[in-house]
Protein backbone atom coordinates (compact mmCIF):
# COMPACT_ATOMS: atom_id res chain seq x y z
CA UNK A 1 0.00 0.00 0.00
CA UNK A 2 1.11 3.52 -0.80
CA UNK A 3 0.96 6.00 2.05
CA UNK A 4 1.64 9.54 0.92
CA UNK A 5 3.02 11.96 3.46
CA UNK A 6 0.36 14.62 3.68
CA UNK A 7 -0.97 16.66 6.57
CA UNK A 8 -3.66 14.14 7.34
CA UNK A 9 -1.50 11.02 7.29
CA UNK A 10 1.23 12.74 9.29
CA UNK A 11 -1.33 13.64 11.94
CA UNK A 12 -2.47 10.03 12.17
CA UNK A 13 1.09 8.70 12.32
CA UNK A 14 2.11 11.22 15.00
CA UNK A 15 -1.02 10.42 16.97
CA UNK A 16 -0.37 6.67 16.83
CA UNK A 17 3.31 7.15 17.75
CA UNK A 18 2.28 9.34 20.68
CA UNK A 19 -0.19 6.71 21.89
CA UNK A 20 2.45 3.98 21.67
CA UNK A 21 5.14 6.06 23.41
CA UNK A 22 2.84 7.55 26.06
CA UNK A 23 3.90 5.14 28.88
CA UNK A 24 7.52 6.19 28.25
CA UNK A 25 6.54 9.82 28.86
CA UNK A 26 4.67 8.76 31.99
CA UNK A 27 7.69 6.81 33.25
CA UNK A 28 9.95 9.84 32.80
CA UNK A 29 7.65 12.50 34.22
CA UNK A 30 5.70 10.37 36.68
CA UNK A 31 2.49 11.92 35.38
CA UNK A 32 0.10 9.06 36.24
CA UNK A 33 -2.93 11.16 35.40
CA UNK A 34 -1.99 11.22 31.71
CA UNK A 35 -1.96 7.42 31.69
CA UNK A 36 -5.42 7.28 33.27
CA UNK A 37 -6.79 9.87 30.85
CA UNK A 38 -5.37 8.18 27.79
CA UNK A 39 -6.46 4.71 28.84
CA UNK A 40 -9.96 6.14 28.92
CA UNK A 41 -9.45 7.85 25.56
CA UNK A 42 -8.24 4.62 23.96
CA UNK A 43 -11.23 2.67 25.30
CA UNK A 44 -13.74 5.30 24.20
CA UNK A 45 -12.05 5.47 20.78
CA UNK A 46 -12.69 1.73 20.40
CA UNK A 47 -16.37 2.30 21.24
CA UNK A 48 -16.56 5.27 18.84
CA UNK A 49 -14.86 3.28 16.07
CA UNK A 50 -17.44 0.53 16.46
CA UNK A 51 -20.20 3.12 16.17
CA UNK A 52 -18.49 4.53 13.07
CA UNK A 53 -18.74 1.12 11.42
CA UNK A 54 -22.55 1.29 11.39
CA UNK A 55 -23.01 5.07 11.41
CA UNK A 56 -20.28 6.21 9.04
CA UNK A 57 -19.98 3.25 6.70
CA UNK A 58 -23.42 1.71 7.06
CA UNK A 59 -25.52 4.85 7.40
CA UNK A 60 -27.30 3.33 10.43
CA UNK A 61 -28.00 6.20 12.81
CA UNK A 62 -27.92 4.24 16.06
CA UNK A 63 -28.70 6.48 19.00
CA UNK A 64 -28.31 3.77 21.60
CA UNK A 65 -24.74 2.68 21.23
CA UNK A 66 -23.84 3.28 24.88
CA UNK A 67 -26.09 0.33 25.75
CA UNK A 68 -23.38 -2.06 24.53
CA UNK A 69 -20.77 -0.20 26.56
CA UNK A 70 -22.95 -0.72 29.64
CA UNK A 71 -23.83 -4.32 28.87
CA UNK A 72 -20.17 -5.25 28.38
CA UNK A 73 -19.33 -3.44 31.61
CA UNK A 74 -22.15 -4.97 33.62
CA UNK A 75 -21.27 -8.48 32.41
CA UNK A 76 -17.81 -8.03 33.95
CA UNK A 77 -19.14 -6.31 37.11
CA UNK A 78 -21.94 -8.77 37.80
CA UNK A 79 -19.77 -11.85 37.29
CA UNK A 80 -17.05 -10.34 39.51
CA UNK A 81 -19.71 -9.63 42.14
CA UNK A 82 -20.76 -13.30 42.01
CA UNK A 83 -17.18 -14.39 42.58
CA UNK A 84 -16.32 -15.31 39.00
CA UNK A 85 -13.13 -13.32 38.58
CA UNK A 86 -11.58 -14.94 35.54
CA UNK A 87 -11.58 -12.84 32.40
CA UNK A 88 -11.74 -16.03 30.35
CA UNK A 89 -15.38 -16.27 31.41
CA UNK A 90 -16.18 -12.58 32.03
CA UNK A 91 -15.06 -11.30 28.64
CA UNK A 92 -16.62 -13.93 26.37
CA UNK A 93 -19.88 -13.45 28.32
CA UNK A 94 -19.59 -9.66 27.84
CA UNK A 95 -19.14 -10.12 24.09
CA UNK A 96 -21.89 -12.71 23.80
CA UNK A 97 -24.49 -10.71 25.70
CA UNK A 98 -23.65 -7.55 23.71
CA UNK A 99 -23.97 -9.51 20.47
CA UNK A 100 -27.33 -10.95 21.54
CA UNK A 101 -28.67 -7.55 22.54
CA UNK A 102 -27.48 -6.10 19.21
CA UNK A 103 -29.17 -8.98 17.39
CA UNK A 104 -32.51 -8.26 19.06
CA UNK A 105 -32.29 -4.47 18.69
CA UNK A 106 -31.04 -4.72 15.11
CA UNK A 107 -33.56 -7.36 14.02
CA UNK A 108 -36.41 -5.05 15.00
CA UNK A 109 -35.01 -1.57 14.29
CA UNK A 110 -33.41 -2.35 10.93
CA UNK A 111 -36.87 -2.96 9.51
CA UNK A 112 -37.43 0.78 9.87
CA UNK A 113 -35.67 3.83 8.46
CA UNK A 114 -34.74 7.36 9.43
CA UNK A 115 -36.28 8.83 12.54
CA UNK A 116 -37.98 5.56 13.46
CA UNK A 117 -34.67 3.76 13.46
CA UNK A 118 -33.11 6.45 15.68
CA UNK A 119 -36.04 6.34 18.11
CA UNK A 120 -36.11 2.54 18.30
CA UNK A 121 -32.39 2.22 19.02
CA UNK A 122 -32.75 4.97 21.63
CA UNK A 123 -35.76 3.25 23.20
CA UNK A 124 -33.94 -0.07 23.51
CA UNK A 125 -30.94 1.62 25.10
CA UNK A 126 -33.14 3.45 27.60
CA UNK A 127 -34.82 0.15 28.42
CA UNK A 128 -31.41 -1.33 29.19
CA UNK A 129 -30.69 1.75 31.31
CA UNK A 130 -33.81 1.27 33.44
CA UNK A 131 -33.12 -2.44 33.82
CA UNK A 132 -29.62 -1.62 35.08
CA UNK A 133 -31.10 0.93 37.50
CA UNK A 134 -33.46 -1.73 38.81
CA UNK A 135 -30.79 -4.33 39.56
CA UNK A 136 -30.83 -3.79 43.33
CA UNK A 137 -28.61 -6.82 43.88
CA UNK A 138 -25.98 -5.06 41.80
CA UNK A 139 -26.23 -1.61 43.31
CA UNK A 140 -29.23 -0.26 41.38
CA UNK A 141 -28.90 3.47 40.74
CA UNK A 142 -25.70 3.69 42.78
CA UNK A 143 -23.78 1.31 40.59
CA UNK A 144 -21.47 -1.51 41.48
CA UNK A 145 -17.86 -1.37 42.59
CA UNK A 146 -15.54 -3.97 41.08
CA UNK A 147 -13.02 -4.96 43.72
CA UNK A 148 -10.84 -7.09 41.54
CA UNK A 149 -10.06 -6.58 37.88
CA UNK A 150 -10.48 -9.49 35.46
CA UNK A 151 -7.95 -12.27 36.07
CA UNK A 152 -6.12 -13.87 33.17
CA UNK A 153 -4.27 -16.72 34.92
CA UNK A 154 -1.14 -14.61 35.29
CA UNK A 155 -0.81 -13.99 31.53
CA UNK A 156 -1.45 -10.31 31.97
CA UNK A 157 -2.02 -8.18 35.05
CA UNK A 158 -4.78 -5.64 34.44
CA UNK A 159 -4.01 -3.89 37.71
CA UNK A 160 -0.67 -2.91 36.25
CA UNK A 161 -1.62 0.37 34.60
CA UNK A 162 0.94 0.17 31.82
CA UNK A 163 0.04 -3.41 30.92
CA UNK A 164 -3.62 -2.49 30.95
CA UNK A 165 -3.02 0.57 28.78
CA UNK A 166 -1.18 -1.48 26.18
CA UNK A 167 -3.91 -4.12 26.20
CA UNK A 168 -6.53 -1.43 25.50
CA UNK A 169 -4.34 0.10 22.78
CA UNK A 170 -3.86 -3.33 21.18
CA UNK A 171 -7.63 -3.85 21.13
CA UNK A 172 -8.14 -0.39 19.62
CA UNK A 173 -5.59 -0.91 16.86
CA UNK A 174 -6.85 -4.44 16.28
CA UNK A 175 -10.40 -3.10 16.10
CA UNK A 176 -9.47 -0.41 13.58
CA UNK A 177 -7.61 -2.99 11.48
CA UNK A 178 -10.65 -5.27 11.60
CA UNK A 179 -12.93 -2.44 10.49
CA UNK A 180 -10.52 -1.62 7.66
CA UNK A 181 -10.64 -5.23 6.41
CA UNK A 182 -14.41 -5.36 6.82
CA UNK A 183 -15.29 -2.19 4.94
CA UNK A 184 -13.12 -3.09 1.95
CA UNK A 185 -14.34 -6.68 1.74
CA UNK A 186 -17.33 -7.82 -0.30
CA UNK A 187 -19.35 -7.58 2.89
CA UNK A 188 -18.24 -3.98 3.34
CA UNK A 189 -19.13 -3.10 -0.25
CA UNK A 190 -22.66 -4.33 0.42
CA UNK A 191 -22.84 -2.27 3.61
CA UNK A 192 -21.62 0.87 1.83
CA UNK A 193 -23.84 0.26 -1.17
CA UNK A 194 -26.79 -0.06 1.15
CA UNK A 195 -25.91 3.25 2.81
CA UNK A 196 -25.69 4.88 -0.59
CA UNK A 197 -28.89 3.44 -2.14
CA UNK A 198 -30.59 0.55 -0.39
CA UNK A 199 -33.48 0.23 -2.86
CA UNK A 200 -31.03 -0.22 -5.71
CA UNK A 201 -29.05 -2.81 -3.75
CA UNK A 202 -32.17 -4.91 -3.43
CA UNK A 203 -33.03 -4.40 -7.10
CA UNK A 204 -29.65 -5.76 -8.21
CA UNK A 205 -30.07 -8.80 -6.02
CA UNK A 206 -28.81 -8.18 -2.49
CA UNK A 207 -30.96 -9.16 0.50
CA UNK A 208 -29.49 -6.17 2.36
CA UNK A 209 -31.31 -6.68 5.67
CA UNK A 210 -29.21 -9.65 6.72
CA UNK A 211 -25.96 -7.89 5.84
CA UNK A 212 -26.93 -4.77 7.74
CA UNK A 213 -27.99 -6.85 10.72
CA UNK A 214 -24.66 -8.70 10.71
CA UNK A 215 -22.82 -5.37 10.62
CA UNK A 216 -24.96 -4.08 13.48
CA UNK A 217 -24.12 -7.14 15.60
CA UNK A 218 -20.37 -6.84 14.85
CA UNK A 219 -20.43 -3.18 15.94
CA UNK A 220 -22.40 -3.99 19.11
CA UNK A 221 -19.99 -6.79 20.04
CA UNK A 222 -16.99 -4.55 19.50
CA UNK A 223 -18.54 -1.90 21.73
CA UNK A 224 -19.28 -4.60 24.33
CA UNK A 225 -15.54 -5.29 24.44
CA UNK A 226 -14.93 -1.59 25.04
CA UNK A 227 -17.45 -1.83 27.90
CA UNK A 228 -15.57 -4.74 29.49
CA UNK A 229 -12.37 -2.67 29.27
CA UNK A 230 -14.06 0.42 30.68
CA UNK A 231 -15.42 -1.51 33.69
CA UNK A 232 -11.89 -2.71 34.44
CA UNK A 233 -10.53 0.79 33.97
CA UNK A 234 -12.93 2.52 36.37
CA UNK A 235 -13.33 -0.50 38.71
CA UNK A 236 -16.97 0.48 38.71
CA UNK A 237 -20.12 0.14 36.64
CA UNK A 238 -23.29 2.20 36.94
CA UNK A 239 -26.44 2.85 34.90
CA UNK A 240 -24.86 6.16 33.78
CA UNK A 241 -22.71 4.06 31.40
CA UNK A 242 -25.84 3.28 29.39
CA UNK A 243 -27.59 6.62 29.58
CA UNK A 244 -28.58 8.27 26.31
CA UNK A 245 -26.26 11.23 26.84
CA UNK A 246 -23.40 8.74 26.70
CA UNK A 247 -24.69 7.53 23.33
CA UNK A 248 -24.72 11.18 22.29
CA UNK A 249 -21.08 11.56 23.40
CA UNK A 250 -20.12 8.60 21.21
CA UNK A 251 -21.94 10.10 18.25
CA UNK A 252 -20.17 13.38 18.82
CA UNK A 253 -16.78 11.70 18.88
CA UNK A 254 -17.55 10.09 15.51
CA UNK A 255 -18.99 13.23 13.90
CA UNK A 256 -16.27 15.50 15.32
CA UNK A 257 -13.49 13.22 14.07
CA UNK A 258 -15.10 12.33 10.75
CA UNK A 259 -17.85 9.87 9.87
CA UNK A 260 -16.83 7.10 7.54
CA UNK A 261 -13.15 7.74 8.12
CA UNK A 262 -11.02 4.95 9.55
CA UNK A 263 -9.14 7.08 12.09
CA UNK A 264 -11.81 9.76 12.44
CA UNK A 265 -13.35 8.35 15.63
CA UNK A 266 -9.91 8.10 17.29
CA UNK A 267 -9.12 11.71 16.35
CA UNK A 268 -12.55 12.82 17.54
CA UNK A 269 -12.25 11.00 20.86
CA UNK A 270 -8.81 12.47 21.56
CA UNK A 271 -10.04 15.95 20.64
CA UNK A 272 -13.22 15.75 22.73
CA UNK A 273 -11.79 14.17 25.86
CA UNK A 274 -8.60 16.27 25.88
CA UNK A 275 -10.71 19.41 25.44
CA UNK A 276 -12.96 18.30 28.30
CA UNK A 277 -9.92 18.04 30.55
CA UNK A 278 -8.09 21.09 29.28
CA UNK A 279 -10.87 23.62 28.76
CA UNK A 280 -11.37 24.51 32.46
CA UNK A 281 -7.65 25.23 32.88
CA UNK A 282 -7.49 27.17 29.63
CA UNK A 283 -10.43 29.32 30.65
CA UNK A 284 -8.84 29.95 34.03
CA UNK A 285 -5.44 30.74 32.52
CA UNK A 286 -6.75 33.15 29.89
CA UNK A 287 -9.41 34.68 32.13
CA UNK A 288 -7.51 35.29 35.38
CA UNK A 289 -5.53 38.38 34.31
CA UNK A 290 -8.75 40.01 33.12
CA UNK A 291 -11.42 38.84 35.48
CA UNK A 292 -9.52 37.51 38.47
CA UNK A 293 -11.45 35.01 40.56
CA UNK A 294 -14.48 35.16 38.31
CA UNK A 295 -12.52 33.21 35.70
CA UNK A 296 -12.09 30.37 38.17
CA UNK A 297 -15.83 30.16 38.63
CA UNK A 298 -16.43 30.49 34.87
CA UNK A 299 -14.15 27.50 34.32
CA UNK A 300 -16.81 25.31 35.91
CA UNK A 301 -19.00 26.13 32.93
CA UNK A 302 -16.48 24.99 30.35
CA UNK A 303 -19.26 23.24 28.43
CA UNK A 304 -20.47 26.68 27.34
CA UNK A 305 -17.27 26.94 25.34
CA UNK A 306 -17.26 23.31 24.19
CA UNK A 307 -20.81 23.42 22.80
CA UNK A 308 -20.28 26.24 20.27
CA UNK A 309 -16.92 24.72 19.31
CA UNK A 310 -18.61 21.46 18.36
CA UNK A 311 -21.34 23.37 16.57
CA UNK A 312 -18.74 25.13 14.43
CA UNK A 313 -17.19 21.81 13.40
CA UNK A 314 -20.56 20.35 12.43
CA UNK A 315 -21.53 23.42 10.41
CA UNK A 316 -18.26 24.22 8.70
CA UNK A 317 -16.44 20.89 8.52
CA UNK A 318 -18.82 18.25 7.21
CA UNK A 319 -16.14 15.58 7.19
CA UNK A 320 -15.11 16.40 10.76
CA UNK A 321 -11.50 17.02 11.75
CA UNK A 322 -10.31 14.27 9.42
CA UNK A 323 -12.18 15.89 6.54
CA UNK A 324 -10.51 19.23 7.33
CA UNK A 325 -7.08 17.63 7.37
CA UNK A 326 -7.72 15.97 4.02
CA UNK A 327 -8.81 19.29 2.55
CA UNK A 328 -5.59 20.87 3.82
CA UNK A 329 -3.59 18.01 2.28
CA UNK A 330 -5.23 18.53 -1.09
CA UNK A 331 -4.55 22.26 -1.01
CA UNK A 332 -0.91 21.63 -0.19
CA UNK A 333 -0.59 19.11 -3.04
CA UNK A 334 -2.04 21.58 -5.51
CA UNK A 335 0.43 24.14 -4.22
Amino acid at each position, binding site marked *: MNISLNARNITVIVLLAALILLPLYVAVTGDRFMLTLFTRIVIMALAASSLNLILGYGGMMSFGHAAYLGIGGYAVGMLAHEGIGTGFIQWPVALLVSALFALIVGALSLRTRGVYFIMLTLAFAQMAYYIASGLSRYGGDDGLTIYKRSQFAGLINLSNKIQFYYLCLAFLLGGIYLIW*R*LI*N*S*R*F*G*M*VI*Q*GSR*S*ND*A*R*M*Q*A*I*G*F*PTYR*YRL*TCFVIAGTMCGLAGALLANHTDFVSPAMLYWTRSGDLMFMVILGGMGSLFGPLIGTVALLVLEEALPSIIKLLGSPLFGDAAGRAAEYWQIVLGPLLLLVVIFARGGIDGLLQKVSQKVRRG
Partner: protein
Amino acid sequence: MAEALLQVENLSKRFGGIVASDALSLDVRPGELHAVIGPNGAGKTTLIAQLTGEVTPDAGRIYFSGRDITAVPVYRRSALGLARSFQITSLFLDLSVLDNVALAVQAHAGHSFRFWRDARSVPELRQPARAALERVGLGDRAELPASVLSHGEHRQLELAMALAGRPRMLLLDEPMAGLGPEESARMVKTLRALKKELTILLVEHDMEAVFALADRITVLVYGRAIASGAPAAIRANAEVRQAYLGEAESEGARHG
Protein backbone atom coordinates in the same frame (compact mmCIF):
# COMPACT_ATOMS: atom_id res chain seq x y z
CA MET B 1 -43.35 -20.50 -32.41
CA ALA B 2 -40.43 -20.65 -30.04
CA GLU B 3 -41.08 -21.11 -26.34
CA ALA B 4 -41.44 -17.66 -24.74
CA LEU B 5 -38.68 -16.57 -22.33
CA LEU B 6 -41.06 -14.24 -20.53
CA GLN B 7 -44.75 -14.88 -20.47
CA VAL B 8 -47.37 -12.68 -18.86
CA GLU B 9 -50.89 -14.05 -18.47
CA ASN B 10 -53.97 -12.02 -17.58
CA LEU B 11 -52.07 -9.63 -15.35
CA SER B 12 -54.35 -7.29 -13.41
CA LYS B 13 -53.49 -4.48 -11.04
CA ARG B 14 -55.55 -1.57 -9.81
CA PHE B 15 -54.59 1.32 -7.57
CA GLY B 16 -57.91 2.40 -6.09
CA GLY B 17 -60.05 3.35 -9.06
CA ILE B 18 -57.18 3.40 -11.52
CA VAL B 19 -56.64 0.31 -13.64
CA ALA B 20 -52.93 -0.04 -14.31
CA SER B 21 -53.04 -3.56 -15.79
CA ASP B 22 -56.23 -5.00 -17.21
CA ALA B 23 -56.04 -8.73 -18.02
CA LEU B 24 -52.76 -7.99 -19.74
CA SER B 25 -51.08 -10.81 -21.64
CA LEU B 26 -47.73 -10.56 -23.33
CA ASP B 27 -44.91 -12.85 -24.35
CA VAL B 28 -41.29 -12.17 -25.16
CA ARG B 29 -39.43 -14.77 -27.22
CA PRO B 30 -35.79 -15.56 -26.68
CA GLY B 31 -33.52 -13.25 -28.63
CA GLU B 32 -36.08 -10.66 -29.58
CA LEU B 33 -36.32 -7.02 -28.68
CA HIS B 34 -39.88 -6.48 -27.66
CA ALA B 35 -40.99 -2.89 -27.22
CA VAL B 36 -43.96 -1.78 -25.12
CA ILE B 37 -45.40 1.59 -26.07
CA GLY B 38 -48.47 3.49 -25.02
CA PRO B 39 -49.62 6.95 -24.02
CA ASN B 40 -48.87 8.37 -20.56
CA GLY B 41 -50.74 6.48 -17.87
CA ALA B 42 -51.08 3.35 -20.00
CA GLY B 43 -49.47 1.29 -17.23
CA LYS B 44 -46.04 0.75 -18.73
CA THR B 45 -44.04 1.45 -15.58
CA THR B 46 -46.49 -0.60 -13.48
CA LEU B 47 -45.94 -3.48 -15.90
CA ILE B 48 -42.17 -3.26 -15.41
CA ALA B 49 -42.61 -3.02 -11.65
CA GLN B 50 -44.69 -6.19 -11.65
CA LEU B 51 -42.13 -7.97 -13.80
CA THR B 52 -39.33 -7.06 -11.39
CA GLY B 53 -41.43 -7.86 -8.32
CA GLU B 54 -41.65 -4.39 -6.79
CA VAL B 55 -45.41 -4.39 -7.30
CA THR B 56 -47.50 -7.51 -6.65
CA PRO B 57 -50.27 -8.09 -9.21
CA ASP B 58 -53.86 -8.52 -8.02
CA ALA B 59 -54.35 -11.41 -10.44
CA GLY B 60 -52.53 -13.15 -13.25
CA ARG B 61 -49.26 -15.00 -13.64
CA ILE B 62 -45.74 -14.20 -14.76
CA TYR B 63 -43.52 -16.97 -16.12
CA PHE B 64 -39.82 -16.56 -16.71
CA SER B 65 -38.17 -19.34 -18.68
CA GLY B 66 -41.12 -21.62 -17.91
CA ARG B 67 -41.05 -20.97 -14.18
CA ASP B 68 -43.84 -19.18 -12.32
CA ILE B 69 -42.14 -16.16 -10.71
CA THR B 70 -45.28 -14.25 -9.69
CA ALA B 71 -44.46 -14.61 -5.99
CA VAL B 72 -40.64 -14.55 -6.23
CA PRO B 73 -39.12 -11.54 -4.38
CA VAL B 74 -37.18 -8.77 -6.13
CA TYR B 75 -33.64 -9.87 -5.33
CA ARG B 76 -34.32 -13.48 -6.40
CA ARG B 77 -35.70 -12.48 -9.79
CA SER B 78 -32.56 -10.57 -10.49
CA ALA B 79 -30.58 -13.68 -9.54
CA LEU B 80 -32.65 -15.73 -12.02
CA GLY B 81 -31.36 -13.54 -14.84
CA LEU B 82 -33.97 -10.82 -15.11
CA ALA B 83 -32.22 -7.44 -14.92
CA ARG B 84 -33.75 -4.00 -15.10
CA SER B 85 -32.62 -0.44 -15.61
CA PHE B 86 -34.45 2.38 -13.94
CA GLN B 87 -36.44 5.18 -15.52
CA ILE B 88 -35.07 7.56 -12.93
CA THR B 89 -31.39 6.81 -12.60
CA SER B 90 -30.73 5.11 -9.31
CA LEU B 91 -27.02 4.76 -8.71
CA PHE B 92 -24.49 4.67 -5.90
CA LEU B 93 -23.43 8.25 -6.41
CA ASP B 94 -20.76 8.32 -3.69
CA LEU B 95 -19.01 5.24 -5.05
CA SER B 96 -16.79 5.08 -8.13
CA VAL B 97 -18.21 4.17 -11.55
CA LEU B 98 -16.36 0.87 -11.45
CA ASP B 99 -17.56 0.15 -7.89
CA ASN B 100 -21.14 0.63 -9.07
CA VAL B 101 -20.78 -2.03 -11.72
CA ALA B 102 -18.65 -4.30 -9.54
CA LEU B 103 -21.46 -4.32 -6.97
CA ALA B 104 -23.84 -5.50 -9.67
CA VAL B 105 -21.39 -8.28 -10.56
CA GLN B 106 -21.00 -9.16 -6.89
CA ALA B 107 -24.76 -9.52 -6.53
CA HIS B 108 -24.58 -12.52 -8.86
CA ALA B 109 -21.35 -14.02 -7.51
CA GLY B 110 -22.76 -15.94 -4.56
CA HIS B 111 -23.29 -14.59 -1.06
CA SER B 112 -21.31 -11.64 0.21
CA PHE B 113 -20.55 -12.83 3.72
CA ARG B 114 -16.88 -12.54 2.84
CA PHE B 115 -15.29 -10.35 5.42
CA TRP B 116 -11.57 -10.29 4.80
CA ARG B 117 -10.29 -10.10 1.22
CA ASP B 118 -10.21 -6.67 -0.44
CA ALA B 119 -13.17 -6.71 -2.83
CA ARG B 120 -11.43 -4.21 -5.11
CA SER B 121 -8.64 -6.70 -5.78
CA VAL B 122 -10.90 -9.62 -6.75
CA PRO B 123 -10.52 -10.17 -10.51
CA GLU B 124 -13.82 -12.13 -10.72
CA LEU B 125 -15.58 -8.92 -9.74
CA ARG B 126 -13.45 -6.25 -11.39
CA GLN B 127 -12.88 -7.81 -14.82
CA PRO B 128 -16.56 -8.40 -15.73
CA ALA B 129 -17.30 -4.90 -14.39
CA ARG B 130 -14.65 -3.36 -16.62
CA ALA B 131 -15.92 -5.38 -19.58
CA ALA B 132 -19.48 -4.14 -19.01
CA LEU B 133 -18.24 -0.55 -18.84
CA GLU B 134 -16.38 -1.02 -22.12
CA ARG B 135 -19.53 -2.36 -23.78
CA VAL B 136 -21.49 0.78 -22.97
CA GLY B 137 -18.56 3.07 -23.78
CA LEU B 138 -17.65 4.19 -20.26
CA GLY B 139 -14.31 2.39 -20.05
CA ASP B 140 -12.32 5.58 -19.55
CA ARG B 141 -14.61 6.84 -16.75
CA ALA B 142 -14.19 3.81 -14.48
CA GLU B 143 -12.26 5.47 -11.64
CA LEU B 144 -14.38 8.62 -11.33
CA PRO B 145 -17.04 9.04 -8.64
CA ALA B 146 -20.43 8.25 -10.19
CA SER B 147 -21.70 11.67 -9.08
CA VAL B 148 -19.55 13.57 -11.62
CA LEU B 149 -20.90 11.83 -14.73
CA SER B 150 -23.39 13.56 -17.05
CA HIS B 151 -27.02 12.49 -17.31
CA GLY B 152 -26.36 10.58 -20.50
CA GLU B 153 -23.42 8.79 -18.91
CA HIS B 154 -25.59 7.87 -15.93
CA ARG B 155 -27.91 6.12 -18.39
CA GLN B 156 -24.96 4.25 -19.89
CA LEU B 157 -23.85 3.30 -16.39
CA GLU B 158 -27.36 2.05 -15.59
CA LEU B 159 -27.11 -0.18 -18.62
CA ALA B 160 -23.64 -1.43 -17.64
CA MET B 161 -24.98 -2.38 -14.22
CA ALA B 162 -27.87 -4.28 -15.77
CA LEU B 163 -25.40 -6.10 -18.03
CA ALA B 164 -22.97 -6.87 -15.25
CA GLY B 165 -25.10 -9.62 -13.78
CA ARG B 166 -24.92 -11.54 -17.09
CA PRO B 167 -28.70 -11.46 -17.34
CA ARG B 168 -30.70 -13.54 -19.80
CA MET B 169 -33.14 -10.74 -20.20
CA LEU B 170 -33.07 -6.96 -19.82
CA LEU B 171 -36.03 -4.84 -18.78
CA LEU B 172 -35.32 -1.31 -19.92
CA ASP B 173 -37.58 1.41 -18.55
CA GLU B 174 -37.28 4.43 -20.84
CA PRO B 175 -33.53 4.37 -21.37
CA MET B 176 -33.77 7.43 -23.67
CA ALA B 177 -35.64 9.62 -21.17
CA GLY B 178 -34.03 13.03 -20.89
CA LEU B 179 -31.25 12.32 -23.38
CA GLY B 180 -30.16 14.81 -26.02
CA PRO B 181 -30.22 13.77 -29.72
CA GLU B 182 -26.56 12.82 -29.73
CA GLU B 183 -26.79 10.79 -26.53
CA SER B 184 -29.97 9.14 -27.82
CA ALA B 185 -28.23 8.08 -30.99
CA ARG B 186 -25.40 6.58 -28.97
CA MET B 187 -27.87 4.70 -26.78
CA VAL B 188 -29.65 3.29 -29.85
CA LYS B 189 -26.30 2.13 -31.18
CA THR B 190 -25.44 0.45 -27.86
CA LEU B 191 -28.85 -1.26 -27.68
CA ARG B 192 -28.56 -2.47 -31.27
CA ALA B 193 -25.30 -4.17 -30.37
CA LEU B 194 -26.81 -5.66 -27.21
CA LYS B 195 -29.89 -7.11 -28.83
CA LYS B 196 -27.72 -9.57 -30.71
CA GLU B 197 -26.87 -11.30 -27.44
CA LEU B 198 -29.81 -10.59 -25.16
CA THR B 199 -33.55 -10.72 -24.95
CA ILE B 200 -34.82 -7.22 -24.23
CA LEU B 201 -38.14 -5.76 -23.13
CA LEU B 202 -38.04 -2.07 -23.90
CA VAL B 203 -40.48 0.49 -22.56
CA GLU B 204 -39.89 3.74 -24.40
CA HIS B 205 -41.53 6.99 -25.44
CA ASP B 206 -39.09 7.78 -28.23
CA MET B 207 -40.92 6.36 -31.28
CA GLU B 208 -37.99 6.78 -33.59
CA ALA B 209 -35.86 4.59 -31.32
CA VAL B 210 -38.63 2.02 -30.86
CA PHE B 211 -39.25 1.55 -34.58
CA ALA B 212 -35.52 1.44 -35.24
CA LEU B 213 -34.88 -1.29 -32.68
CA ALA B 214 -37.94 -3.44 -32.05
CA ASP B 215 -38.63 -6.87 -33.53
CA ARG B 216 -42.14 -6.76 -32.12
CA ILE B 217 -44.19 -4.05 -30.47
CA THR B 218 -47.04 -4.26 -28.00
CA VAL B 219 -49.29 -1.24 -27.57
CA LEU B 220 -50.79 -0.59 -24.14
CA VAL B 221 -53.82 1.61 -23.59
CA TYR B 222 -55.40 1.87 -20.14
CA GLY B 223 -53.56 -1.25 -18.99
CA ARG B 224 -54.71 -3.39 -21.91
CA ALA B 225 -52.69 -4.69 -24.85
CA ILE B 226 -54.68 -3.44 -27.82
CA ALA B 227 -52.24 -4.72 -30.40
CA SER B 228 -49.06 -6.73 -30.71
CA GLY B 229 -46.96 -7.44 -33.76
CA ALA B 230 -44.13 -6.43 -36.08
CA PRO B 231 -43.36 -2.70 -36.37
CA ALA B 232 -44.86 -2.47 -39.87
CA ALA B 233 -48.10 -4.12 -38.74
CA ILE B 234 -48.33 -1.82 -35.71
CA ARG B 235 -47.78 1.22 -37.87
CA ALA B 236 -50.61 0.07 -40.16
CA ASN B 237 -53.01 -0.90 -37.34
CA ALA B 238 -56.02 1.41 -37.41
CA GLU B 239 -56.86 1.00 -33.72
CA VAL B 240 -53.30 1.87 -32.72
CA ARG B 241 -53.25 4.89 -34.98
CA GLN B 242 -56.43 6.13 -33.45
CA ALA B 243 -55.59 5.37 -29.82
CA TYR B 244 -51.97 6.20 -29.74
CA LEU B 245 -50.07 7.37 -32.75
CA GLY B 246 -52.79 9.91 -33.52
CA GLU B 247 -52.35 11.36 -30.11
CA ALA B 248 -48.58 11.38 -30.50
CA GLU B 249 -48.99 13.29 -33.76
CA SER B 250 -51.27 15.86 -32.23
CA GLU B 251 -48.84 16.07 -29.30
CA GLY B 252 -46.04 16.60 -31.81
CA ALA B 253 -48.09 19.26 -33.51
CA ARG B 254 -48.61 21.00 -30.20
CA HIS B 255 -44.88 21.01 -29.50
CA GLY B 256 -44.12 22.10 -33.05
